[in-house]
């Protein structure tokens, strides 16, 4: 099983290297280490979000409200910064995490306590959180000139030659790696996805664990909210509109099974990088950015076809055959 997982990520990594190779035949500077660092930095937010979504999907749930959460939390910190520029950035990040946590906990409570399917809950909160952003801001934007220099500059400051944004992404990746491979919580997240009934009998509180994963994805949404707003230096109701599907796309390309239980931190990161490379490469090789949507759509379909082929070898054949027939 473990060897197999590695196998899949190696293939994805190989696909990414081939992709970079293909791009550099038309634009050699793309494979430049400096440029690749830039691509990594550009993709940081998507990687962080994909990891938050991953833990939810692993438990056979889905969080469609992440982009709206991002929008709301980002608006909260942007308005706080505009009104009180003296608040230090670390405190703002903690506030963003807390706001995201509350929004995620609302999702989690509805899923845990009322047993409403997560797709229904987050479909509802997707519109509610974005609407709440409008109510909060009165429809107004927070522009760059209202944000403090620290607010904008924090993630751009270089540390050891790499921007803080990239360091945050690396830190989050490391935390998720430890969570998924070295903690009991990580193990129970996988267990619930593979077999919820058996998980109950092994003493895992399925409802509570689902609540926790929604809290995690909520906090990630909040963190990404600050990062997004300070990166694109505008906070409005339209921020990250429809982005929830990009996050899920990154997970799917990364080999995370929507049926739960299958997927890894490396997969989610590589899936996000794959999308990030495409969106960075299109302009430099003179392909209209309007192609991006169709290309990522094709990549999703291709990835799910390949992943399904991989899963089929694992002996779930009986069920699958029936569904497919």
């Amino acid at each position, binding site marked *: 099983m473990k060897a197999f997982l590695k196998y899949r990520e190696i293939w994805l990594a190989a696909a990414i290297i081939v992709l970079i190779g293909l791009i550099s035949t038309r634009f050699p500077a793309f494979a430049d280490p400096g440029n690749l660092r830039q691509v990594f930095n550009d993709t940081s937010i998507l990687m962080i979000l994909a990891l938050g979504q991953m833990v939810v999907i692993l438990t056979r749930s*889905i969080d*469609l409200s992440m982009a709206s959460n991002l929008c709301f939390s980002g608006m909260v910190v942007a308005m706080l910064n505009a009104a009180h520029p003296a608040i230090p950035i670390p405190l703002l990040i903690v506030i963003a995490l807390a706001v995201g946590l509350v929004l995620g906990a609302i999702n989690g409570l*509805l899923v845990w306590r*009322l*047993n*409403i*399917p997560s*797709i*229904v*809950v987050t*479909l*509802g*909160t*997707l*519109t*509610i959180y*974005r*609407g*709440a952003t*409008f*109510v909060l801001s009165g*429809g107004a934007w927070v522009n760059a000139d209202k944000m403090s220099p620290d607010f904008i500059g924090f993630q751009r400051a270089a540390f050891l030659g790499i921007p803080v944004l990239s360091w945050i992404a690396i830190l989050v990746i490391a935390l998720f790696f430890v969570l998924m491979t070295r903690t009991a919580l990580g193990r129970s997240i996988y267990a619930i996805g593979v077999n919820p009934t058996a998980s109950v009998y092994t003493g895992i509180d399925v409802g509570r664990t689902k609540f926790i994963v929604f809290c995690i994805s909520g906090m990630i949404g909040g963190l990404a909210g600050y990062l997004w707003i300070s990166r694109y230096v505008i906070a409005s*109701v339209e921020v990250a509109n*429809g982005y929830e*599907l990009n996050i*899920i*796309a990154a997970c*799917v390309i990364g080999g995370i099974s*929507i*049926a739960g239980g299958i997927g890894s931190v490396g997969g989610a990161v590589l899936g996000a990088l794959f999308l990030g490379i495409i969106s960075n490469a299109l302009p430099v090789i003179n392909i*209209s950015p*309007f*192609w*991006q*949507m*169709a*290309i*990522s*759509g*094709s*990549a*999703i*379909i291709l990835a*799910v*076809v390949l992943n*399904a082929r991989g899963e*089929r070898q694992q002996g779930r054949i009986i*069920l*699958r*055959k*029936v*569904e*497919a*027939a």
Partner: protein
Amino acid sequence: MTDIPAPRHIPDRLDKPFRSAIFSWEALLVVVAIAIFAINSFASPYFLDPYSLSDLTFNFTEKGLIAFAMALLIISGEIDLSVAAIIALASTMMGMAVQAGAGTPVLVLIGIVVGLGCGAFNGLLVTRLGLPSIVVTIGTMSLFRGIAFIILGDQAYKGYPESFAFFGQGYVWWVVSFELVLFLIAAVVYWFLLHRTSFGRRVFAIGNNPVAAQFSGVRVGRIKFILFCLTGLMSGIASVLITSRLGSTRPSIAQGYELEVITMVVLGGVSILGGAGSIVGVVLAAFIMGLVTFGLGLLNVPGIVMSIFIGLLLIIVIALPIVWRRLRGSS
């Protein structure tokens, strides 16, 4: 004078149907609809006007048409997130045909055929390759709308023939629009299909237990394929209506409709897990969503705030019976 004892009442059925009818999902929706209707009538003097009410119907007819097919699809345990993208692609194709000088009948045909084709593509991927529909249709959602973006970029198609405007703007009689008539006809057709044919029973059977359905001789794959085709077809029809109503095509047309359609279906009492639901519920949910958005619109509430109400409505209506049952169970 002796009293003749009254004949003993022998029930010919349990009294459950009446009680279950009162506590049914549809009854709850009717109450909600009446409440919202009443609130609207009090809140705005412009609401109770035949022309206002006629305008109201445009808020839900297009999405409602797709919601019927989507209801069947969700009952069978699948989902289609690509419906709005199908609208965009079909509309773009119609726009291309207009530039080539196509007439109204050809345009309608193109819209419907493109919709059907997209639905069949989804259906093939899901049933032939055995892929999870939620992922497949997230992919095709990007793919279909992506093709529309490749063709159109930031441009727009205009210049639809005047006769084409009838589908989205025309009235059949007085204030009864063509869209509303189509919606009602589709409601009856889908009600019959789901609740009165063996096909409908098979859809429920698949949703409740696909394996058991397969072993009972139901062709699970084929029926799911048909349902994807139907959803594509309805999206194509909706695309004709929207394009006709707007009179232009942009690649961002109908953005976000997929979630509204699914909200409508779930609000209508269709179980997102499959196996349960009714067309009457979906019709009522369509009316409710139309009433909410139109009523708030009359009060100058911005669209984004309306979406809060739709979202709250969705969660509250679903949570209410669960909380109710739990409270009764604990007492």
